[in-house]
């Protein structure tokens, strides 16, 4: 079974804190993604990575950064958390084209509250 594991299910942080959200996958996937999910807005892509140390901005990268030092791990960093970053964060991973099915597998999400 493919597993995508996010480090926390619920997280409460204070404004201005540096926040790390960790995601680990065990299927040797090349692609990894970070989304935030808000009611009425669906899933919006923050960043994605198609290889180790490679990253691409998604649709809403402002206020976030990412790190991919190892193939199985993709970290989302909130440099200085703000209340408008309160949201559900979802991590996903998939094979690149030609390596297998292209479907993305998701973690269970981290509900982050910034107070």
């Amino acid at each position, binding site marked *: 079974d493919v597993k995508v594991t996010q480090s926390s299910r619920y997280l409460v942080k204070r404004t201005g804190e540096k926040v790390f959200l960790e995601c680990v996958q065990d299927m040797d996937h090349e692609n990894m993604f970070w989304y935030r999910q808000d009611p009425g807005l*669906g899933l919006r892509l923050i960043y*994605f990575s198609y290889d180790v140390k490679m990253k*691409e901005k998604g649709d809403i990268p402002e206020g976030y950064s990412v790190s991919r030092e190892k193939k199985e791990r993709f970290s989302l960093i909130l440099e200085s958390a703000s209340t408008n970053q309160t949201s559900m964060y979802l991590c996903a991973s998939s094979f*690149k*084209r030609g390596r297998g099915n292209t*479907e993305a597998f998701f973690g269970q999400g981290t509900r982050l509250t910034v107070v």
Partner: protein
Amino acid sequence: AQTVTQSQPEMSVQEAETVTLSCTYDTSESNYYLFWYKQPPSRQMILVIRQEAYKQQNATENRFSVNFQKAAKSFSLKISDSQLGDTAMYFCAFMVDTGANSKLTFGKGITLSVRP
């Protein structure tokens, strides 16, 4: 830029009946993939069905099937014999996979309620 549009925010269907969820997308690419994902109240996102754009035949998975109209850029999901466990949010998604452009873009989702 790729966009995915799900214009219906909510739908409701009687158990055992059939329901169709709509999705349109916009892209200039010719090779891509389309997906429908389900997110039940447990929050775990799971794949319902996948369609490769180069395949003309519509994908089918048990009670779930799609109507893929490439020229119209339309990708609707039909759920037959609806069950209470189908109650969830459903997201249409689109991916162009060319290495650096492996963006997976989602629509806003639709909340489906199945009534007993």
